[in-house]
């Protein structure tokens, strides 16, 4: 039947139920298991091939000299978490985790080495 207020029953039913929104910084809001967040870099597996830096679409991954070896450094403020470096790496040295809570104050940019 066409009438105003067809949602009235469903809406009243919400009074007894909990709200679905989460007050995020005060409550936990875990990511799904498949989520691509901050990456882990395994220094021992790296062979300094530079594929990750070559394929990075946002130039967040840069090859830098560390202890006399070329190693990728990930500047996470530029990173868009596409996971291309993880895929391009021939030795599986890069792995994406589900950590997404990367907000920070100015000058405190998270960097993964």
């Amino acid at each position: 039947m066409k009438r105003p207020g067809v949602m009235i029953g469903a809406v009243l039913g919400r009074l007894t139920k909990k709200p679905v929104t989460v007050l995020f910084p005060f409550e936990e809001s875990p990511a799904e298991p498949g989520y691509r967040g901050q990456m882990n870099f395994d220094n021992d597996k790296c062979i300094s091939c530079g594929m990750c830096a070559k394929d990075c679409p946002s130039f967040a991954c840069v090859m830098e000299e560390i202890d006399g070896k070329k190693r990728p450094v990930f500047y996470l403020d530029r990173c868009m978490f596409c996971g291309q470096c993880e895929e391009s790496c021939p030795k599986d040295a890069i792995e994406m985790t589900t950590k997404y809570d990367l907000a920070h104050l100015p000058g405190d940019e998270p960097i993964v080495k």
Partner: protein
Amino acid sequence: MNIVESLVYMLIFPGFLFLTSYAFFAQYIDRKLYARFQKRVGPPFIQPIADFIKLMSKEDVVPKAADKRMFTLAPIVGLAAVITAFMYIPIAWESSLLPSFEGDLIVVLYLLTIPTLALFLAGWTSGNPFGQVGSMRAITQMISYEIPFFMALLAPALIVGSWSFGNIVTDQMNGIWLIFLAPIAFIVAIITLQGKLERLPFDIPEAETEIVGGPLTEYSGRRLALFKAMLDIEMVVGASVITALFLGGPHLFIDFSGLPLAPYLPFIIGVIIFFVKVLAVILILTLIKSVVARYRIDQMVTLSYRWMVSLAVVQLVIIILAKYMGWL
């Protein structure tokens, strides 16, 4: 009443101070319920007051194109009118404590049209095209809801045979709540009150997705805070009018007059009952607001004149017939 009593009555209870706090509380309830209906958490208890204080401390801009005097005057006049209107509403049954006189219903209804006129003038003189369109809509909407609203509130007055809030409430305390005698008028009054308060489905004058803020587009800072407070208080006053006329005011079928500390304790209990009823009316208003989409202005006019006016007329005819036949 002597001067001190009058001042207390106007400034503290149930005047300015109490009314403003209660309006903020009502706004909190309204927002919280609206949020819960929408699966949201809603604002914390302190939010309405925090909003008010924040707006009060903000920079106050008057646009060059606006008429400065009118721009400043409009919110103050509107706020004063709604607060004055509340003075005449019998929030408790000790009628000796209340300034009731024959015809105060008319006075309240007229005072309640002033906020809309203030909004109209505010939008019209603010020199903003959105404000002007909003003002035109506000005035069009006013002439379409006022008539059914007045006619719906005429029904209780006709049944009781008095133009006074005091008499109508006293009559309900001795007899039956008027919602049972005039249910159609109650429905019409609730729906047109929604139009009066410019809430969904009739928030046409300030439809934010169409004309930004309507008459309030250019307002900021203190004046906006006053306007927002005016709208909150108007909601409380409108709900109180309906409570007093249809829901028996402070009456709850129990006689509290035998309690100790009379007449103060029964008075306080009456006030509490009254404001709980006002909250119930606000719940109905919020429920309506959360389940409908916004009407267009032409549809609103059609709805008012075709349906609301005819329903109100039907109600009045039934009452007059019943009076004539001697059933009432």
